[in-house]
């Protein structure tokens, strides 16, 4: 009899099933609803703009909603979709088939990545629509201010959504890595949020250690830098202008950075899950 080589088809089937299961979860509906409400309501919140230009404020609100609710959704969905398989023993039936554990686990990761892609695409599209409409209104009110045409670069908005998705995929991979050895879902969720904080703030810690000049601090900063990705790398410059669009090479590097981290965490999760007793 032939062997059973690793199959991307089986991985895809697990991913498809994971996505189908995920879109039925109330948790997704809740976070998606909250994020949509925040993006749509950004115009009503413009009194709190702290002096930022209105369109920039709306964009910040949109990307903020994606970060906040996207991260919460990613961590919760990854942990829940993994542990539901273990606790409901559906993994038992599936892994009793000629299925590699790597196919199962990476399929889960791809399923969550597809879920977050839908989330980011929906919110980015909505944000672009809100910006387009408001920009049109502002152009009608102040034609002089928009003499050169539209000021917002919608390509920049799309790139922002893409980088946001990369961050969520990395976060999903780290949460899955913890889940692969964790005994409880709560532990995986708490660790997932811990990873989120570290990835967002590690650049500050590294700067502080470097400023302090402490060898131990620099070593610690280097250690964290080696163990966790820096989410600040995956953010665009503080601008919506087309003139600030990053070069294609930069986007390729950023994409490789994000997917590289996700793949590394995913492979570590596979290694850890290989010996887990189901």
């Amino acid at each position: 009899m032939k062997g059973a080589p690793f199959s991307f088809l089986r991985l895809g089937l697990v991913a498809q099933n994971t996505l189908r299961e995920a879109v039925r979860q109330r948790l997704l509906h809740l976070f998606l609803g909250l994020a949509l409400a925040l993006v749509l309501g950004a115009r009503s919140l413009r009194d709190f703009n702290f002096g930022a230009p209105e369109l920039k404020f709306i964009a910040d609100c949109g990307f903020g909603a994606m970060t906040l609710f996207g991260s919460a959704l990613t961590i919760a969905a990854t942990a829940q979709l993994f542990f539901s398989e273990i606790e409901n023993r559906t993994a038992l039936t599936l892994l009793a088939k000629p299925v590699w554990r790597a196919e199962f686990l990476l399929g889960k990761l791809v399923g969550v990545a597809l879920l977050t892609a839908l989330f980011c695409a929906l919110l980015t599209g909505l944000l672009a629509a809100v910006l387009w409409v408001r920009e049109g209104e502002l152009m009608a009110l102040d034609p002089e201010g928009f003499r050169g045409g539209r000021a917002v670069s919608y390509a920049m908005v799309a790139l922002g959504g893409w980088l946001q998705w990369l961050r969520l995929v990395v976060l999903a991979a780290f949460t899955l890595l913890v889940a692969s050895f964790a005994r409880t879902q709560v532990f995986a969720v708490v660790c997932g949020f811990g990873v989120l904080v570290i990835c967002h703030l590690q650049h500050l810690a590294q700067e502080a250690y470097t400023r302090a000049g402490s060898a131990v601090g620099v070593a610690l900063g280097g250690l964290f830098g080696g163990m966790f990705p820096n989410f600040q790398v995956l953010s665009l410059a503080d601008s919506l202008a087309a003139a600030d669009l990053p070069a294609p090479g930069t986007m390729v590097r950023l994409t490789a950075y994000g997917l590289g981290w996700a793949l590394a965490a995913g492979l570590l999760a596979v290694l850890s899950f290989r010996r887990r007793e189901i």
Partner: protein
Amino acid sequence: MAPALETRGLVKDFPVGLREVKLRAVDHLDLSVPAGVIYGLLGPNGSGKSTTIKALLGLVAPSAGECRIFGRPSGEVAARRDVGYLPEAPYFYRHLTGRELVGFYGRMCGLGRRELAERVETVVAQVGMTGAADRAVETYSKGMLQRIGLAQALVHDPRLLILDEPTAGVDPVGSAAMADLIRGLRDAGKTVLLTSHLLGQMEALCDRVAILDRGRLVAEGTVAELAGGTGRQQLEVDRLDEAQMTELRAWLAVRGRGLHGVAAAGRGLDAVFLERVGRVKGEGKEL
């Protein structure tokens, strides 16, 4: 020809508590299940049946010893191509319909689209679920879950079936139909490894049984070897009155034999139930 299943010196320890004291679930188990038989694995709760099955399916790693499926180490993914598994109290993806569920597992086993459609229809009909196949699994009763679970185990036409408590939660009509189906699988050349607490059913169904206790094999053989051998026989005769009974005793005594028990022969509650509720054999072998 390699046995369908084989364990040699199988040991499985589980670490327990903070100090990770070892709890031995399976203790030097040697089993050999020949191909083409119904083999019963019996034992009280905690005797190591489920752990043995998990080790055979590569779901837990043995602490020592080895397991083989048709000669292949069971840790190899390819070994599981020949196995269909129905877990105890199965729980499936609730959002899928029965047909989608069986199709999903079929595709995971590598069936192509055309072959898959045929196999799904065949096995869904085989377990009597055609009428409910397009309903979501979340609406299924316990018995229906067992049936669709059996269908997913059969979908890729494996040579070996491992059925863990297949009649748990199934009514007597369903149990009888399940027993018929298992016999049919054996007659079609499949090997069936079965666990159940219904000893009567196991006795009637199994060609060979192994009894485990605290992870050790305490008995193994055919049902006749294990349960027979009392040197006595049961005769079923028309009702005798007191005088005839006395005469029979005397007749036996002359020949050095004794009458050890007399009981009215009943049809058994099972038979009455199946006859009254009965849609077992006449109606598409519904489980």
